[in-house]
Every structure is written in C-alpha cells, then in structure tokens.
C-alpha cells in the first residue's frame, strides 16, 4: 500500500482564508467523485467557512475528559476505520489533549498518510520550528505549538494562502475573524500591520523554499556540527543551525561534550529536541571541551561548526580563554559560526 499524499495550505495568521481554501478544494474533489471526509474542522464561528462544509461528510470527533473538562479531538481511529480516499484535517500544528493517543495532530496525520489516506491540512508559517526564534524576535510572541520542519518538507504540496494585511485587518474590524473584544486586542497586539507584513514575507519565502526543495534534490557536501550545552540558548542554536543546514542542503549533526560522570537534564532535553528535528546527536566524554569538539569535527569531516556565545564570565576567569576562543584557535581550518542570541 502506498502512503497518502499530503497537501498543506500555508498562511501567516488566523483569518487569511486557509480553511476556506481547503474546503473549496474539498468541494471540488467531491464534485469529481472523490470519497472525501472531514476528519477535523475548526469552525471558529465563521459563517462563510461553515457554509463551505455543506454536503461534506464529517467523522464525529472524539470527546476526552481532562482536568474536569471535556475536550474534543480528531477521532483518528474512526477516520482509519472509515478509510476515505481523502481526509480534511484542520490546524496541523495543534497539540492534542493528554489522553488522546498521539501528542500532536501532525502525528495523527502521519498515521492517516501511512494508511494510504490523502490529507489536506492548514497551518501558519509561525508554527515552523526553525522560525520560532525569528517569529519571537519580530512579533514578541513565543509560539508554543510547533511542527518540525521535516514534517512540512515531506508534504507533497505546500500552497501559500495569501491575503494582504490590510484586507485581513478589515476582516478583523468587520468581526469576520474574532468576536469584538478579542478582535480589538488582536489588532493592538499581534495583528499590527508591521507584524503581519513580516510574517507574510516569511510565509512567501518559506513557500518559495519548499518549491525549490522539490526542484533541486539535495547533494551531499557540507556538514554542519552544532555544539550543544545545557544553556537555554542551545534551543536557539539548534534551530538556527538546522535552518542554515536545510537551506544549504547540508548534513546536520550535534555534539555535547560531557565532563566525566556528568548528567544534565537540560542537555538531555536539548538532545531530544535535536533528534526530533532529525539531527544526528552524539555525546562524548572529555574534560577538554574545545579539543574534543575540534577532534570530533575533524574525524566527522565537518565543514562548519555552530556554537553559542560563551555567557558572561566572573572577573577571576576573564584572563583565560572562553570555550569559543579555544575552539576558534584549535579549528582554524574550519568555518566556525557563532550564533547571535537574537534578544528582543
């Protein structure tokens, strides 16, 4: 059995018309005789969008008790049993309520694809893991629900749903997107003209990137090594290194040098995060961090090392070299990138 085809409608904010476009396509497919069902649809109380679901079969949602409330999620098993040709699954980046089986909706979608079901889905560009820091930098909002980039890269088609910020703001003002009080807050905070323009530009560039990825399959060549620590800025470092690797179509690996006997929960979390982004991870024991990194880089034929900055140091250590300085000194034959912290 072949896996299903995945099509993603990519937008840059709520209200640009992703779900509407997806339903338009669903109606067109149904008119052509395709067996299509709605696996999950988020109406958001928008009348024109709800009207577009007319005549489409919906698989009832699953109700889940959690923390004294009842939540509704896609009933993935029911969709599998129904086994349509195509399923429509709104909000690709959604995190499921605990007890739903799979943690993320994109994992549910993968299950459907594996069962040979085609899937249409929607998402906003700010949910891409590799853009998380950049989006925070631009908008001041830390997006919590993220999708690893490889999940989107594997989609058969990514289509941009574009709307100008002015048109979107008009829609919000007319109350077509949010209830009045929420609309006012949205306009003042996230939905400013500058924020929307910046996110829209990201969505355009990302769609162009997806088109290019399919035009030019990767050639092996560059290898990028990310040096991880327990420092919180490692998350930024991982995203940035992976993003550069993706654009350069380079291999990406990560290493942490552990002092003998060291166990660090933060490092384990960062390693796990890196593996979720499909980065090959290594932990090496050694007490000379810089030398270990330089040696590892050489044996792994790495072409570029990514490091965070060394944090502020107490005055009594300022005479010695930082790890970054030591690596720079010991790997003068390699490219070394010291990543900005991108504070706001």
């Amino acid at each position, binding site marked *: 059995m072949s896996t299903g085809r995945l099509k993603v409608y990519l937008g840059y904010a709520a209200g640009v018309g992703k779900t509407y476009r997806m339903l338009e396509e669903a109606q067109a497919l149904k008119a052509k005789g395709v067996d299509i069902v709605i696996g999950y649809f988020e109406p958001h109380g928008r009348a024109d969008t709800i009207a577009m679901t007319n005549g489409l079969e919906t698989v009832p949602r699953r109700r889940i008790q959690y923390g004294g409330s009842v939540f509704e999620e896609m009933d993935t098993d029911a969709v599998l049993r129904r086994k349509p040709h195509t399923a429509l699954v709104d909000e690709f980046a959604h995190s499921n309520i605990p007890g739903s089986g799979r943690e993320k909706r994109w994992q549910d979608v993968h299950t459907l694809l594996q069962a040979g079901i085609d899937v249409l889905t929607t998402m906003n560009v700010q949910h891409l893991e590799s853009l998380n820091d950049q989006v925070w930098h631009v908008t001041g909002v830390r997006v919590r629900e993220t999708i690893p980039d490889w999940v989107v890269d594997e989609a058969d088609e990514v289509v*941009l749903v574009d709307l100008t910020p002015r048109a979107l703001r008009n829609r919000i003002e007319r109350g077509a997107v949010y209830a009045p009080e929420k609309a006012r807050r949205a306009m003042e905070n996230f939905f400013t003209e*500058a924020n929307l*323009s910046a996110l829209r*530009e990201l969505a355009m560039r990302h*769609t162009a990137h997806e088109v290019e990825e399919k*035009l030019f399959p990767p050639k092996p060549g560059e290898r990028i090594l990310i040096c991880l620590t327990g420092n919180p800025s490692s998350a930024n470092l991982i995203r940035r290194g992976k993003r550069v690797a993706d*654009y350069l179509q380079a291999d990406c690996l990560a290493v942490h040098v552990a002092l003998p006997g060291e166990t660090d929960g933060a490092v384990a979390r960062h390693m796990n995060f890196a593996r979720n982004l499909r980065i090959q991870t290594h932990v090496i024991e050694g007490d000379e961090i810089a030398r270990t990194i330089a040696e590892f880089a050489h044996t792994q034929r790495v072409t570029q090392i990514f490091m965070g900055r060394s944090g502020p140091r107490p005055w009594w250590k300022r005479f010695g070299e930082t790890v970054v300085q030591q690596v720079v000194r010991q790997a003068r034959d390699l490219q070394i990138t010291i990543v900005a912290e991108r504070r706001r």
Partner: protein
Amino acid sequence: MDRRLNPDELLRRVQAEERREKRGRLKVFLGYAPRVGKSLRMFDEGRRRRERGQDVVVAAAQDKVTDDVHQLVSKFEAIPQLGGAIDLASVFRRHPATCLIDALAYDNPAGSRNAQRWQDVGEILDQGIGVITALNVHHIREQQDEVERITGKRAARSVPEAFLREADEIEVVDTPADTRELAELRELALLVAADVVDHQLQAYLECHGVTAHWGTQERILVCLTARSDAEAMLKSGHRNARRFHGALLAAYVEQDGLKPEEREKIAQHLALARELGAEVHCLKSGDFVSAIIDLAHRERITQLFLGHTQRQHSPIEKLLDAADEFDIRLFPHGEQK
C-alpha cells in the same frame, strides 16, 4: 539606532505622503502563469467590494476568459474601451471608487495617450480612483532575463518593478505547479512578492519612525581585509545568499600604512565582490569594529563573514561582545589549507 532624516529627505517624505493620500489605492494580484486564477480573484474582490456598497466598474477585461470569470465580469458596469485602449476621459468623468483593470501588461495601440496600460493606471490613480489589477511575473521588466532563462521565451510587454513597489497592496495567487518550468516561475513570483513586501515593510517602519533590524531576509556582509581569504569568503557568501534568496554585501574599512602589494590585494578583492554582485561599502573610520557594527545595523545584516585571526588582540572578541543581532562566521585563511 535611529537614523535621522535630513530636511530634504523629510520634505520628500511629507510630499510623498501627501501625494499618496490623494491618490487612489492600487492593488495587484500577482500570478506565475496564465490561468492560475488571477482574473477570478480580482473580479471576486470587486464583487465583494460592491456588495459592501462601493462603486466599482470594469475599465478593461480580457476577451478570452473562463466561464466563471465571464459570469463575474458581466455583472459589473463596464466603461467600453476606445480604439483598443482604456477610455481615460470616460473613466475620469464617471469617477468610480474602484476600477477593475485586467492584464496590466498591455501595449496600447499606436497613437494612444500612453504607450502602455500601466501608465494609464498611473493617471487613473492620480485622479483619486482606486484600481485593482492582475499581473503575471513574466511581465515584470526586471525579471525578464530570469524568465527567459527558465522558459527560453521573452514576453514582448512589460511593467517596471518600481510600479509594482508603489502598489499599496500586492497579493500572490499561488497554486501547485504541474511542470518543472512552472515550478521555477512559481518560486520566482513568490520571491518577487516577498521582496515587494519587504520593501513596503521597511518603508512603513521608516515612516513610523521605527528602526527595527528585523531579519525576515538573510543579509550577508563579508568583511574584507588584505590578509583574509577573500575569494573563499565571497564565493561562500554568494552561494549562501543565493540559497537563502538573500542579499550579499561586502565591506572594507580603510587602513593606514598598507604596503603596495596589500593595496593591490584589496583592490582585487573589491573587484571580485562587485563581480559576484555584492553591494560594496568602503568605510573610512579609525575603528574597524564600530565601523562594521554600524554598517551591519544600518543594513540589517543577519550573518557577518570574517577571516580567522592569528593576532593576540583580535577584533573578533570585540565584535562578539558588541554584536547580538547577527551571527558571525569565521573563515580559515587560504594559506593554511
């Protein structure tokens, strides 16, 4: 970092804003090929505006259209064309709130008031009438070489990209592409639109007195010195900028006491930078680090390329301390390979 405007710039800005306020608004639907649905989207927007009570008329439609577009067009009041061109006098007299004008890239017949339709649109906007129009990426003058590389063909008619940048709104009509050629055109249309949006965003921020170093586009600055392996850095910068669809810049901070052969080297590096399409900046400053950081902030740099150094007190440390907006990539020196 706030960049102060001089009185002339300020005056120009005020005049531009006044002109803009009196002008009609221009909205452009941009597509990557015929029949991706630009016309449909354009007339549909006209329909929605009319339903909200706006006075909308059609000033130019195409002859060959799909049935659904034809149905939409037929529901509007139309100002008939005059001798194969938009009847400007009638449009001005009728003075609607919005004109729908399909096919922005169009040559008017000889003897018309303007040679090309986009010039007609400019005049209509000057009368305070809004315009919604549609354009294909083939027809953007500055993109024609690239389109020819992809398709082997060159469109006869064109619209300058500057006209597109003046538009108040540009919207991409995106659909999946069936062939490789169409996919390349699709990518081009998306990148052109992203550049227009970036340009407008910067104008907006400047207009509102905000200087943000928002990196939605990768911008690479290569720092050249006499000792650096400039060729490797510039070629890598060029490749990176191309992969990211970003910008490439190169900077040289003038130094005293260089030997003639070092001067010769620098001249070669700068020539190579220009050859690779880099925007070259020669800076006169006694302080290398602050000159580079100022330039990087002004130009919204996201990656700074620099050679490794052998010296004890290297500028790298100072740059690392002072710069938190961009990544710093250190390159090996050529002779160490």
